[in-house]
């Protein structure tokens, strides 16, 4: 690694949960490089507080800098720590202007990041990401002659950035584990609710109206079919606290449709990403759309069904494709990458609503055969 050992490095981790999870191989490689030099204290991991907990129990020697939920950050992020070396390198994984500006204003000598959104001039090492030009076939069927950033998993750009430090990052799936106490807490609840019974972890959350998530009415047929395919399995509906009403509605619908089936709402128990991660480590199968929980399931090595709606599948390509069933409808409007579907009537959100629930459930149940040995043994 070609950095000055007398200087510290701040790794600014991404804000979106999925991107954060995807950065684990880089954090691991970076930490090992510092540890090999006995300088792990000179490495600082800066990121959203809730997400940093996902790294608890690992990278113990590295400093943690928790950022507020608002994502606000300033030059103080790069202040010299008490008894530590001044910060010599800011490795910026977010692509925001604000993160680059903070490092620039702090006068960090080396600022490494992706050159986009007009922030290239703030960086000393500006990576110009791969771009596709011409009549790109994806992107709302729009034939454009100008170039746009190539959709790709964030992990790739992170590895390219690490290359500036002479650091090789292995091209592998991210791996995260909850701390023993979080796992024990979740296990205790699981034992009382489902006993030793296997369960399917369902991401039942999502912002209302978001084209990336299914409404309770839309999720119901898929989950009902899945319950029929997997009669031995309980269904565990996990939502964040803010999505409690949505989870409750889905729970109610499924209870009516599947009387006598073990259904669990886990909203109050999956308030933290670390708890959702702990659930993913115990589940037999995951069901989700292309949102943050997908990446937690991946990081737990959980076989999963992922329904892809308006997003470009290249953004979320899996590093362990044998464990992921990705269903996506080829539609002329997809992928549009929009936060709201611009269409109305039967075409509205068809990219996510148009799946054959029975077929999807049958394919997902076949995934159970892909269960890795270490998961099957419960370790």
């Amino acid at each position: 690694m070609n950095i000055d050992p007398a200087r510290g490095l701040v790794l600014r981790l991404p804000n979106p949960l999925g991107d954060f999870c995807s950065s684990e191989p880089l954090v691991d490689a970076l930490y090992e490089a510092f540890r090999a030099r006995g300088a792990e204290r000179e490495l600082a991991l800066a990121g959203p507080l809730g997400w940093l907990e996902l790294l608890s129990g690992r990278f113990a020697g590295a400093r943690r800098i928790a950022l507020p939920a608002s994502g606000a950050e300033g030059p103080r992020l790069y202040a010299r720590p008490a008894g530590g070396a001044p910060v010599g390198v800011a490795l910026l994984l977010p692509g925001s202007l604000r993160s680059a500006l903070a490092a620039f204003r702090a006068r960090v000598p080396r600022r490494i990041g992706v050159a986009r959104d007009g922030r290239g001039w703030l960086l000393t090492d500006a990576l110009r990401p791969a771009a596709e030009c011409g009549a790109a076939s994806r992107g709302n069927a729009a034939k454009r002659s100008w170039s746009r950033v190539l959709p790709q998993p964030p992990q790739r750009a992170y590895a390219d950035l690490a290359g500036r430090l002479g650091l090789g990052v292995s091209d592998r799936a991210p791996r995260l584990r909850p701390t023993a106490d979080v796992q024990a807490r979740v296990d205790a609840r699981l034992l009382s609710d489902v006993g030793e019974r296997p369960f399917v972890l369902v991401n039942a959350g999502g912002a209302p109206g978001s084209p990336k998530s299914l409404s309770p009415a839309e999720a119901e047929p898929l989950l009902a079919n899945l319950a029929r395919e997997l009669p031995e399995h309980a269904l565990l509906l996990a939502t964040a606290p803010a999505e409690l009403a949505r989870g409750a509605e889905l729970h109610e619908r499924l209870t009516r449709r599947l009387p006598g089936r073990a259904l669990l709402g886990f909203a109050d128990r999956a308030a933290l990403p670390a708890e959702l991660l702990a659930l993913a480590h115990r589940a037999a199968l995951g069901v989700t759309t292309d949102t943050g929980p997908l990446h937690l399931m991946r990081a737990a090595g959980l076989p999963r069904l992922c329904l892809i709606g308006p997003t470009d599948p290249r953004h979320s390509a899996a590093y362990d494709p044998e464990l992921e069933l990705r269903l996506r409808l080829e539609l002329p409007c997809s992928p549009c990458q929009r936060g709201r579907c611009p269409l109305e009537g039967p075409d509205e959100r068809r990219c996510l609503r148009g799946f054959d629930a029975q077929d999807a459930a049958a394919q997902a149940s076949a995934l159970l055969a892909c269960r890795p040995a270490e998961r099957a043994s419960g370790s």
Partner: protein
Amino acid sequence: MVRAPNWVGDLVMATPVLHAAARHPGVERLTILLRGHLAPLLSGGELEPFVRGLGEGESEAALYRELAPDGVLLLTNSFGAARRARAGGVPVRAGAALSGRRWMLTRALVPPRIDGRRVPVPTARLHADLAGLVGLEVPDLHPRLDVPADAAASLGRVLEGLELAAGAGYVACAPGAAFGAAKLWPPEHFAAALDALFEQRGLPGLLFGAPAESAILAAVAEHCEHPVRVVPETERSLGRSSALVAGAQLLLVGDSGPRWLAAAFDVPCVSVMGPNFPELTATSLEHARIVRHAGLDCAPCLERCCPLGHHRCMRELPVAAVLDAASELLGPCGVRA
């Protein structure tokens, strides 16, 4: 149409894209265009019906005009490949914006750059990104090949002729490199590694390579103290080499095409790398170990011959490092089951 790469390794790395194209419901008529001598690599499997080999002296542009494809995905990065597709009147030409050919492409992928210099991207990844230009999703970068039944059968006869019993283990060794002398590990190093593997594991060496590499094979065999087998020049077809690697316990190879044959068959492989960027081939490493001389300022130079004349990146690469890598793959003792 897909214009497949001209190098063995690159072609094998392109197989995930070729499979994705063959299976995509939106591709009504697929042709995989490649140099004729590479066609046997894709024989015996799903891709064979789509292969169209280019004969010696055959005009690629004329072939484009004859076949009149709707579009061509160029997995070769040369200026000439784009020029020929354009001259052939192919309306959609998708490829990497390299070698000054961007203006000839209708869909182009611009690789990442930093400080104006290209960031090394694994070739398999580049192929998958290029496939995205024509709407193909490539879920897995791991290459896959099939061994044609006739190649497997004829290999059996060859091995019999070399007095290698059917089912007996061997270490396949391809010491040559079509790229150039800079990629060659000295023959005496290969020989020492093969001798050590024979002593440690009882696995005889089996030398193979392109027909033009006979002198290198002979040099390795000459330095070996234990008997090694050399596949006769007339028997070294690509299809047979493919079958030979598929049946090996281990492949010992330079940074050359056969490394990717091992990846395609999940055969353990130790590859010695000199002047190349390790990032360019940093995929499918599950059963592979890349052994390099770390800490040389001049490497990677990407030159075909060492511009400094010392060739330290390969000459100073120790045999012990290769044997350690082999032990990692095969275990401390015994052979692969």
